[in-house]
């Protein structure tokens, strides 16, 4: 069994997978984030396993989304934001100045809180990524990617007859699965999800959760959620953040049954504050 290690001794890290442990996909060491003078993230250190779902939980403003956005350098888009420490994906430093950020974001896809399809057809939404990244040479190849992405996102049955209709005509849950299909279309290695179900009803949420569980076979998934039950249902590892610090990072089953840190305990049992 692979042991998760951390240089930040204050963080409890436990792996308790009974099966084969996954290799580390994302390796974060002493990651800090400042927005101007304000420090938003303090020395976050964690190893995120490949082909697993890792959930980040914590109260609003705890830094979980900030850390998530470090993994595909989305924070670069904010002028006053400075990121410190190191993050590697498969041992490659993603903050290396020579690294092409556009390529990184193709490897590390993202799904946002609100479904944000382009105001285009269902087909064009999926085809957009492969086109701009030059991943296809022919129409038939593109058709194949659109079909397989929609199938992997569990949307093919509902969408195959209406590929040329506007994506905005779909239901919220369908739009979110379309956004996941769009992320998958460029064959990323990691998919970041920032509250992907917060705008969805329980049935649509269940579809997305089932999809997340299926997708982890081929992708590393990192999800930020305010819904603790969702973190418990979909993830294998959970990290609890508070005031910009990673407080505890552990096997999800253990964290929700017997957290080691009293702050984690108070938060997940609804005693916080």
């Amino acid at each position: 069994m692979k042991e998760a290690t951390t240089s930040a001794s204050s963080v409890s890290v436990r792996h308790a997978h009974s099966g084969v442990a996954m290799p580390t996909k994302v390796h974060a060491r002493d990651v800090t984030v400042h927005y101007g003078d304000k420090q938003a993230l303090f020395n976050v250190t964690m190893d995120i396993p490949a082909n697993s779902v890792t959930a980040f939980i914590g109260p609003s403003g705890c830094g979980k989304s900030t850390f998530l956005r470090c993994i595909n350098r989305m924070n670069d888009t904010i002028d006053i934001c400075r990121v410190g420490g190191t993050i590697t994906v498969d041992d490659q430093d993603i903050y290396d100045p020579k690294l092409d950020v556009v390529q990184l974001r193709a490897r590390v896809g993202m799904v946002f809180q609100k479904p944000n399809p382009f105001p285009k057809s269902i087909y064009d939404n999926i085809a957009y990524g492969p086109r701009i990244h030059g991943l296809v040479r022919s129409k038939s190849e593109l058709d194949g990617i659109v079909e397989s992405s929609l199938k992997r996102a569990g949307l093919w049955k509902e969408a195959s007859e209406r590929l040329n209709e506007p994506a905005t005509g779909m239901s919220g849950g369908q739009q979110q699965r379309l956004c996941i299909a769009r992320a998958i279309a460029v064959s990323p290695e990691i998919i970041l999800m920032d509250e992907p179900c917060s705008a969805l009803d329980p049935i649509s949420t269940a579809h997305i959760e089932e999809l997340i569980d299926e997708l982890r076979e081929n992708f590393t998934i990192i999800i930020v959620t305010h819904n603790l039950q969702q973190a418990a249902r979909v993830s294998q590892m959970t990290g609890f953040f508070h005031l910009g610090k990673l407080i505890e990072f552990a096997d999800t089953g253990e964290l929700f049954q017997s957290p080691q840190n009293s702050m984690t305990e108070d938060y997940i049992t609804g005693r916080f504050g």
Partner: protein
Amino acid sequence: MAPTQHIVRSYDTELEQVDRHILAMGGLVEAQLRGAMEALVEGDREIAQRVIESDTQIDEHEHQVDELVTRVIALRQPMAEDLRRVKTGLKVAANLERMGDLAANIAKRSLVIETPHQVPQREALRRLGNAVYGMTTDVLNAYRDGDAALAQRVWRQDESIDEMYNAIFLAILADMIADPRVISPGTHIHFVAKNIERIGDHATNIAEMVTYMILGSLPDRERPKGSSVQGAEEQP
């Protein structure tokens, strides 16, 4: 018992109700065990009747715990300490219910024995009963106070209870071999001793669950077991 309160206070109220039923059950089981032993060694038939009758109250509390815990799981989706607490509550209630049944069975057997002087190994039985009564009281206090150290002390006592039971079993056997008139009361008394030992086992189960509830893990070694008597190994 919880260090801090939930933001939603009605959640605390529900968990407190579970505790109240369990502690009420525990009090009844303590009284049953004490009464059953008194009925046996002092020959008090009235107490024996009361012990037998109080069983329905214990069953009612168990039913209430079951309903409350099911409700909390369905409506609150408890996690961490709360999850361990309701899971423990459910198991503790089931163990207490069995302890009550076993105490009632001791009381029923006491009615069959005509005079307490017929009870072989009376003093040894009294000592066994007192020891198990002490375990029961301690484990209920550990539950009430969230005292993991006390729960673990109870858990370690199981070994000495097993040894006391084995000694009584051998002594009764010897008494029966020496005097066939002891066979009839001796058989009942052997069941009584076994029942007391089983009550001790249930108290040990509760000690395990209380430790789990408080610390999030079970006691860290295999439960100590006394040497078994040939042909009288513990049933799972």
